[in-house]
Each structure stands twice: as C-alpha cells, then as structure tokens.
C-alpha cells in the first residue's frame, strides 16, 4: 500500500512538471544567422531561419528557398526579436546561430548595446562568428542565396573559417573573444568585414545560383579596427595580414616577393609564431615583436637558382625585410588612429603592472608614442616538388 502511494506521488511529479520548456523540433524556427542594423527607431533585426524540409529535400523540383529572412525593427534587439513572432509561425530558436552580422552604420555608432543581449540570452552558444557588413546593411548580406552551401549563414561560417586558416587577412572572431577585447583596456577589438559583390537586389533571386558565374557573392574583406565599441576604420589587406602575423593568428597563407631579375616569387607560410615582449628603457616601455616563419616555396616566376644555398639565404633575408616592413606599416596605421589592436597594452600590463597603472588612463595617446621594434626570422624549408623553374634554360 505504501509502495503504491509513493509510486502515485512520483507519477504526479512527472505529470505536474507538465513537460515545461518542451519544444518539439517542428515547433522551432532554427535561426542560423542574425543581422542587426541601426534604424531611426532603434534596431532592425534580420533573422535567417532554416526551412529544414527544403534543405534536406534532394528532389529536383524547386520549392521554397532553403532559408527565410524575417526582419523586424524595435527599440531594442530583444523587443524586435519577440515582435518577430507576429510574422514567423514559430518561435525563433537561437542556439544554432552561425553568424552574427553587424551593419557598418551600427558598428560606427557602437556595438556594445547589441552585444549585451547576445551574451545575456541563454539560448545563444558562443561559438558563432561575428563580422561587419562593409558598405551595406546586415539585412542585405543575409538575403543572398549562395552557391555550394544551401544555407547562406553556413556558407559565411565555413568561408570565414577557411579563409582565416588559409589566407591570413581575415579573423574568425567569436563572441567571447570580442567581448574579452572590448572589456580589455590594453587591447582594441577587430572584426572581419564582409561585402557583397554585385547588387543586393539580385542576390536573393534563385537565378543567382542557377548560373555558373553567380552575379552576387559574399566576400570577406579586411579587418575593421575598433576603438572601444566603435568602428573607426578599415585596415587594408597587407595591414590585416600583418595584424595576424603580430598577434600570432596566421595558420597558413601565401606571400610574394619581387625578385631581383624581375618577376615574383611566392612562398607558402607553413608555420608562423610571434612573441611580443615589453622592455623598459629609462622607465619607458618599448615593445619587441619577434616573428618566426617557416616557409615553403610555392611559385617561382623569376630567374634564380634555387639549388644554391646563397639564393635561399638571400630570399630569406628579403622575406625578413618585407615582413618587418609590413609589420611596421600596420603598427603605424594603428598608431595614427590611436587604436591598440595588437594588444601591446596588455603585454605591458602583464609584464610591468606598475608602469601600466600610469599609462592605463591615457593609453590610446600613449600607444601612439610607443616605440615598437619588429624582428623577423624566415626559414625556407622546402622547395616543393621541383627545384628550379623550368622556363629557365
């Protein structure tokens, strides 16, 4: 009898829970990409939602688009998202967001208010990438139908990941990294830019992907530098690359040098390492950057004899010189804009906390005056599968 009573109570526990918070898969609007733009009344939020049946269906007949874009504006991001239920049949489910695109206008005005919601909401995982729509709105970026990947946000995610691994000028930045940079006084944030090639009107037509050479594509550009939470300018491609060299984010890339006798020689960077150190000179901090590269020869269009050690050493020297020059250019750019995107302040903070205490308040100005020395060491390891270029005879 007692057993029955206990069992009854337990059953009630199951039933009274009422399956709270239960969401069946077909009640979810799975959001893969969010775009946030600034509008007069507040924010305009665009959400790219997957239509699962369309993504999976491998039948030939074209039905609906694989994703749908819901756009809604509101005074705050959260409000806009909730208001979205008036146009979406299902509740937007945020956990699978792959990309967060911020409009350039919004980025120039400040991204901190927007990020608060994204990091506060429990549904967001922090493994999505963040990018800035360059010269256009986030809405326009998210409405492009992309080739190869059915879900445009996945395309953006994969493309950013690949390009940051194989082509250095982009940076795959996740939410926690961005927030860490924003709250860190000794480092300013950067974000990769994304732009449209072609007109935004054409991008959301299915014809865009029905032709071999799509008219509208999404392309990652270089890095945007932030001061605080405000975008203040775009680095060019070389500077972006140099940024990644100095911060040690280069996994692999390609870089070319002019040869003596004309033509260019391209090297594949296989391994890149950087060490940033601060030293004190007369009580003033200076920054030493040590960049170590291991390169392979990737493409030779000039008349040189690669079989000789001297040639290799010469190339190494040239490459080192080039590396230092690019690095210095990027540092100069940052100094001009008074944004310490490299995190030199952070290095000083770690090594000389007392010195940092004095510099901290006025760091942006101090950074502009900070002496920075870059040293590079390039080692050429392999020549590829042939020795000399075969046009040489």
């Amino acid at each position, binding site marked *: 009898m007692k057993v029955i009573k206990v069992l009854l109570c337990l059953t009630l526990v*199951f039933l009274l829970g009422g*399956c709270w918070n239960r969401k*069946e*898969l*077909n009640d979810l609007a799975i959001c*893969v990409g969010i775009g946030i733009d600034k509008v007069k009344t507040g924010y305009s939020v665009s959400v790219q939602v*997957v239509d*699962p049946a369309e993504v999976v269906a491998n039948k030939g007949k074209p039905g609906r688009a694989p994703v749908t874009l819901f756009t809604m504006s509101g005074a705050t991001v959260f409000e806009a998202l909730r208001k979205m239920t008036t146009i979406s049949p299902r509740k937007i489910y945020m956990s699978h967001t*792959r990309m967060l695109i911020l409009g350039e206008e919004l980025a120039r005005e400040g991204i901190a208010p927007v990020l608060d919601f994204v990091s506060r909401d429990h549904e967001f995982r922090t493994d999505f990438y963040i990018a800035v729509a360059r010269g256009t709105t986030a809405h326009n970026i998210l409405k492009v139908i992309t080739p190869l990947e059915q879900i445009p946000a996945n395309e953006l995610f994969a493309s950013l990941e690949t390009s940051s691994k194989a082509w250095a000028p982009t940076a795959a930045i996740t939410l926690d990294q961005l927030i860490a940079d924003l709250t860190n006084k000794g480092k300013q944030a950067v974000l990769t830019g994304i732009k449209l090639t072609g007109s935004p009107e054409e991008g959301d037509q299915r014809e865009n992907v029905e032709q071999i050479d799509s008219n509208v594509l999404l392309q990652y550009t270089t890095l945007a530098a932030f001061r605080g939470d405000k975008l203040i300018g775009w680095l060019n491609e070389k500077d972006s690359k140099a940024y990644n060299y100095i911060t040690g984010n280069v996994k692999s890339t390609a870089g070319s040098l002019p040869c003596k006798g004309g033509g260019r020689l391209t090297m594949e960077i296989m391994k890149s390492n950087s060490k940033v150190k601060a030293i004190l000179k007369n009580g003033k901090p200076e920054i030493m950057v040590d960049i170590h590269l291991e390169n392979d020869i990737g493409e030779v269009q000039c008349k040189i004899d690669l079989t000789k050690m001297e040639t290799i050493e010469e190339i190494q020297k040239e490459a080192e010189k080039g590396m230092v020059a690019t690095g210095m250019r990027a540092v100069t750019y940052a100094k001009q804009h008074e944004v310490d995107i490299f995190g030199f302040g952070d290095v000083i903070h770690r090594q000389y906390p007392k010195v940092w205490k004095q510099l901290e308040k006025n760091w942006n100005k101090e950074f502009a005056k900070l002496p920075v020395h870059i040293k590079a060491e390039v080692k050429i390891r392999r020549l590829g599968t042939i020795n000399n270029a075969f046009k040489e005879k």
Partner: protein
Amino acid sequence: MAQIGPRLDENVHFVKESLGYSNDIVIRELVLDSREPVRAAILYTDGMVDSHMVQGVLINSLLYKTRFKEIELEREEDLVPFLKDAVLTVGDIGDVNNFPELFTAMLSGCVIILIDGYEKAMAIGLQEWKDRGVTEPTAQTVIRGPREGFTESLRTNITLLRRRIASEKMWVETRRIGEVTKTEIAVVYIKGLVEEGVIEEVRNRLDRIDVDGLMESGMIEELIQDAAYTPFPTISNSERPDVVAANLLEGRVAIIVDGTPFVLTVPSLFVEFFHSAEDYYQRADFSTLIRMLRFVSFFIALLAPSLYIAITTFHQEMLPTQLLISLAAQREGVPFPALVEALLMEIAFEILREAGIRMPRAVGQAISVVGTLVIGQAAVEAGIVSAAMVIVVSITAISSFIFPAINMSIPVRILRFPLMILAASFGIYGIIVGVLGLVLHLCSLRSFGVPYMSTFAPFSFKEQRDAILRAPRWMMDKRPESITKRNMRRQSPNLKPKPPEH
C-alpha cells in the same frame, strides 16, 4: 496405513487402491523358491523402467537363482539381505520402509520388490525412459565451443558435468522439492573451492521451499533469489555444461532441476551476464573488444530512445546544426510529440518481438515481413513517425539482443520505458536522475550474499582481468575473489608462452 504391513496381498492391494488402479503400474506376483516358497511381488511404472532388465535379469534371478542356492537361512528376516547379497544381479538397490517412500521410488522409475512376511521393500534403480537426448543448446549458441547442451533429465545433466570434471571433489547433493511433484533437485559444487557459507545458504533457501510443484528452474530462481523486487537477474542460468563446469571451478554452486535443461548457478555478478562461453575460447583481444561492445550495447539499449527524446525536445543546442536541420526536416509534419512517437514504435516493436516468439515457426516469416514493412516504411511514409525514430528504435532493438544471457535484456526492456517518460518530462536531467537511481539499486543488490556489482563496487583491480576486459589465459592465475576466497590458485602464475630459448 503408512507402514508396510507383513501381508503381501494387503500391501499390494493398498498400492493399487492408492493409485486408483492406474494402469501404467505393473504388478507382477511371483513365488521365490528358497527353502520354502515365499510369495513376492514386483511393482514398477510402465515406461519408466528398462523392461529388458526387469524381465531378463531381475525376474530371472529372483525365480531361478533362489532355487539353486542351498543356503540355510536361520531366520526368515534374512531373506532380504540374502537377495541383495547373493541373488539380485543389479547395481542400485535401496531399502524402502514405508509407503510414501515406496510411492516416490516407484513413480520415479524404481522397481519395487515386496516380499510376503517382510515389513520392508527393496527399490531397484532400473530407470529408463524416453528423453530428448543431448542436443545443441538453442538459447546460448556459440561458433567455437562444445555443442552439447543439458537435457530435461537430471541424471544426464549430472553425467554431462561429471564428464567434464572427473574429480572426487565434485559433490552432488540431491533432494526432492514439491509436495506433489517430488521434483528431484541436485546441488552440485566442488568441495574445497566453494565458500561453505554460500553452500549453507543454498541448502537453507532450498529447504525453505514448500510448494506443490516445480516445472522449471525459473520457479526455484524466484523463490531463492536475494531481492524480491528487482528487474535484474541475480541468479544466472545456462544450458551449456561447459559454462556450468567453468562456474563450478570458480567456486560457484550449480542447482540442477529435473525436467529442465536450464541449470542455475549462484552467486552471480552483474558482469557475468555480459560474458559468453565463447569469450574464453577465442583470442583474448577479440573477446575484450566484443565485451566492450556488449557494454556499449547495454547503454544503447537502455538509453537510446530516452536520449533521443531528451535531446530533440529539450536540448536542441547539443546537436550539430546539420544534424538538427536534418532531424527537424524528418519531423516536419509528424503529428505526435517525440515521446508518443517513441512509445508507439517501442510498443509496436515489443508486440512484434513477442509475436515472433509465440508464433508457429512457419508464420514467423510473415511476421517479420509485416513488421519491417509496417514499422520501417509505411509509418514513415504516412508521416506518423519520423525516420530517425525508426533508426533509434531499431538500433535499440538490435542492441538488446546482444547479451549472451537473455535474462539481462529483460531489465533493459522494462527500464527503457520509465527512462523515456523521465526524459520526456525532465530532459537529460531526468535521465541522469533515473540512471543514478538505477546505479544505487544495482549496488544495493546481492546474490547469495555477494555484492551484485562486485569487481566494480566493491572495486577489485585483480578481477578486472575478467570483467570488461578478458585477459589472456596465462594471466588469469587466480580465481575471482568476490566469489570464493578459498584455494585462489587456479593455475601456475608463469604460463606465459615464450619462444624456444636457443
């Protein structure tokens, strides 16, 4: 009238009366011609004795041998020992003092000799009846290993064990249980290896049994297990003599029940139900992998549907995006919540499984065709269940068939359902709570005093050689310490094979 009286006709009449003149009882009256003619009767159950022996040897020796022997008997009582000592050319002769004993002996195939003037009878063991014969075991099949299986006959079963263990240490204790059936039960163990406490416990528990009848060892199992309420088997059974013999060698006790090929062995541990006889006949590395596979299957069979329910209704963020989209696409248009979907499929599967066992073999084929078509295809195409759910239920079903001991799949089958409900109400949190409860329950179980989860809890490092892993034969030089603590040495500790030294 429980005592055998001095007058033969009264005794014979009483036997006839008691058995209601059943016509399978044969009563042959004859006259023994020693010094002076003595009347006697032979009683036996037709079909249970070797009739050639009865006619050719027993009656022959009684009628003729008594004539030629000119032995002076001093007193009439000496006739019984005389017959035993000098006349009857058969092996197994026992004394019977009263009618209950007489009936039990006669009805279990003994030939009874009653002699006029004697208040005693002789029971001669000449049992022979039609039985199934030793065939290949069907419930526990192996690829490599002996093909013999136990039969329904207790004698044959003991013989099968003796043929494997030719040691004077293998002791057999028999007793009869069942008020009406008087079923013979044998307790077999190896003296010196078995823990005395365990054998004493077995005796006590068997003696406690007071039932009308026993049809199968499962009935004993239910009456002697440690915990009354548990879905887990705490007594293992086998129809393979090699398995039972190996268990005896590890210090376990076997309980053989007449009339069933399933022999019980105690104490049993949780891990034992994941061990197959073949594990010890195959290479150790392979057996280890297969055992790991069984443990993985155990968790799949127990948890796969509940995890699927929990993840797809509560924790969608745990899935990779691509998988989530593909699952969501499959669920598009499915009208039921995941729990109902899972219950539908699980119940449908259980029906199929049960029907498949009960059906006459010829219809079984039809069942499997209907099952595959109905569950596999039609349900998905009609949009009642999603394809992913069919996959989950199928892998669950297949996994629950992997256990070498079928009785371990039973708790898994039962517990799957409460876990599914927990998952549907509380998500993964519910599953964790359920599994914790399960672990607590398992750790509270005992089998004849030995903790059921032994080798894991209490943890024994030495016994890991034969739990999830199966160490090479030369490494297993000690008996499992959770079963027996006497005579631990199983083999020489340096049996590791080496190449020749020169």
